[in-house]
């Protein structure tokens, strides 16, 4: 039975089990800190406000720390108020995302965390039971639980601390400072950091590896403030259909592509396999789909066309990546990415590009523990300014032990029926509308089944008339 206890885990208390779990896990302990380096850089390793010292924002049912696999502990309510109640000292809005019939009309309220009942975007998708424990209450959706209105990881800690406007500027500045020190390093098979090669822990289960993109430590308005108006609308649209209509359209549920940003989603990556060679570093991971990041060392992008690219002018679901070594640090630039979405996060466009820096983490004796992964994301269509995500990969072993990577073939068994994701049995006959995969197929489903009575959205340009 779930245990409902208001404000059970306050910010300071929450850090205690975190630290305790970290201690139990022995020496392989990371903080969310940036890379271990004394280097003064224009574009990497800037100080970071450790999110692991912040409490969760949204209402959720937690089973222990969740760091080391499934827990046998009963789920415990962590939130501002359980279903059907309002937190003490908080005045609810007359209309919020759970009571609104048309979220488009509520735009002026989107900046108020109370519109989302102080739930993070990840908590909103959990309320109906998205991750198996429901907090929607007896009179859904209006009886939904509240999150902690006082908890929010600062926006200033999310945006890029570097002054670059584009990924190209950023990459070139990093390369210039590396060159000024005599780099980039040209590795051979004798000198390439072979200790990188091996199996790494599921990033979501690596101790102290919370980062903001897991979307559990921010109020929704804080995340919206990072987005352009159109992408704000898209994020609230998804939040509404998570929170209100219970019509989640997660791409992986239909075996649709995962997309580039799902590399940072807490549920999309399990153990990672990394292989380092002088000219190529490959990062392999995935659960429902395969994520293969091939980092082409020493190559340059073709700068002709809409975005920099390595191959043909075809947007790629996970982009194309170049990089260079600075000693045992790898600096990369990814471009030519297909726009898409990650549920509970935000959509991105084909303009998305990233600068990612992989730096070894070592203990006091210099033993290799894993990699610090700092990413700065540039998307002028979706983001009002670049953002940064920092996390750690904890090395588990070399390839001579442990389970091998399982190459995934996703066979669709869940289909949208009347707009609702529905498991379908072999032999069952259904009516199925072929989605337009490059036209926001989730939006088409929501508009057809759940938004007919909402404020008419801007008509698309008439491309068919030549009168």
């Amino acid at each position, binding site marked *: 039975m779930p245990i409902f206890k208001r404000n059970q885990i306050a910010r300071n208390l929450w850090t205690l089990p975190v630290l305790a779990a970290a201690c139990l896990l022995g020496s392989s302990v990371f903080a969310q800190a940036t890379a271990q380096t004394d280097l003064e850089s224009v574009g990497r390793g800037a100080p970071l406000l450790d999110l692991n010292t912040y409490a969760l924002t949204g209402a959720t049912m937690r089973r222990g720390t969740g760091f080391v696999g499934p827990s046998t502990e009963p789920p415990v309510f962590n939130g501002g108020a359980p279903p059907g109640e309002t937190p003490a000292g908080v005045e609810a809005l007359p209309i919020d995302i759970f009571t609104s019939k048309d979220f488009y009309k509520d735009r002026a309220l989107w900046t108020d965390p109370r519109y989302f009942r102080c739930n993070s975007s990840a908590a909103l998708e959990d309320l109906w039971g998205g991750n198996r424990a429901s907090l929607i209450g007896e009179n859904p959706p209006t009886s939904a639980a509240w999150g902690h209105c006082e908890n929010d990881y600062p926006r200033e800690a999310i945006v890029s601390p570097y002054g670059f406007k584009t990924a190209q500027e950023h990459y070139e500045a990093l390369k210039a400072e590396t060159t000024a020190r005599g780099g980039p390093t040209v590795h051979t098979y004798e000198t390439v950091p072979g200790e990188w090669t091996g199996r790494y822990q599921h990033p979501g289960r690596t101790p102290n590896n919370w980062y903001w993109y897991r979307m559990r430590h921010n109020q929704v308005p804080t995340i919206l403030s990072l987005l352009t108006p159109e992408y704000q609308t898209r994020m609230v649209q998804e939040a509404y259909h998570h929170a209100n209509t219970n019509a989640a359209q997660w791409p992986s549920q239909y075996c649709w592509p995962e997309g580039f940003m799902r590399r940072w989603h807490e549920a999309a990556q399990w153990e990672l396999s990394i292989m380092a060679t002088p000219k190529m570093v490959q990062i392999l991971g995935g659960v429902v789909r395969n994520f293969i990041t091939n980092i082409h060392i020493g190559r340059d992008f073709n700068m002709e066309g809409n975005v920099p690219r390595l*191959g043909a*002018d075809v947007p790629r679901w996970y982009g194309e990546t170049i990089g260079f070594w600075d000693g045992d640090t790898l600096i990369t630039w990814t471009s030519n990415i297909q726009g898409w979405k990650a549920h509970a996060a935000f959509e991105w466009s084909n303009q998305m590009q990233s600068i990612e820096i992989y730096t070894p983490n070592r203990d006091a004796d210099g033993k290799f523990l894993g990699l610090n992964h700092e990413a700065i994301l540039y998307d002028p269509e979706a983001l009002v300014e670049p953002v940064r995500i920092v996390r750690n990969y904890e090395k588990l072993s070399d390839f001579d032990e442990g389970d091998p990577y399982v190459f995934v073939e996703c066979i669709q068994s869940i289909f949208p029926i009347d707009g609702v994701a529905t498991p379908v049995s072999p032999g069952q006959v259904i009516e199925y509308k072929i989605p337009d995969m*490059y036209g926001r197929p989730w939006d088409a489903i929501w508009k057809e089944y759940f938004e007919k009575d909402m404020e008419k959205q801007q008509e698309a340009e008439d*491309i*068919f008339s*030549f009168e």
Partner: protein
Amino acid sequence: MKMQFKPTTTLAAVALLAGAVSLPVLAHHSFAMYNMNTIKVFTGVVTRVDPAPNHLQLFFAPMNEDRKNVERDEKGEPVVWAVEMGGSAQMAREGVSVNAFPPGTVFSVGMHPLRNGEKAGSMEGGLFKCPERTPPAAGMHCDSVEGSIQIGKAGLPEPK
């Protein structure tokens, strides 16, 4: 650049195929569903380019005879056809890509239609892209429009 090319003999057409847009030699699926003895030629408006793993698919609404709008169904909605081409990377190198053919692009193409009568076909011959928002005159194709871009070395095939 204005390009017009009308092969008049079967021999010429066969010879031109060698220089046409490089259709897949090693296909990922059977093309037997298409009727290779029939050719349709369309001028249409792009609705979507799908760089799918099998072969690039270009979805379009065929233009009506006067080239002022597109053919529509009984509900007034555009009728949409699909033409299957070569691999996405190969076609991008030829000039057919998501970025080069955004929705609204007017182009002309020949195809072998499906045997079952559904609205799709396999590309045959060359492809012509009209200048932006500049459809051809009534009954004509993009190869007749000044400034059109030719993809591949072959012209539009003769319907049969």
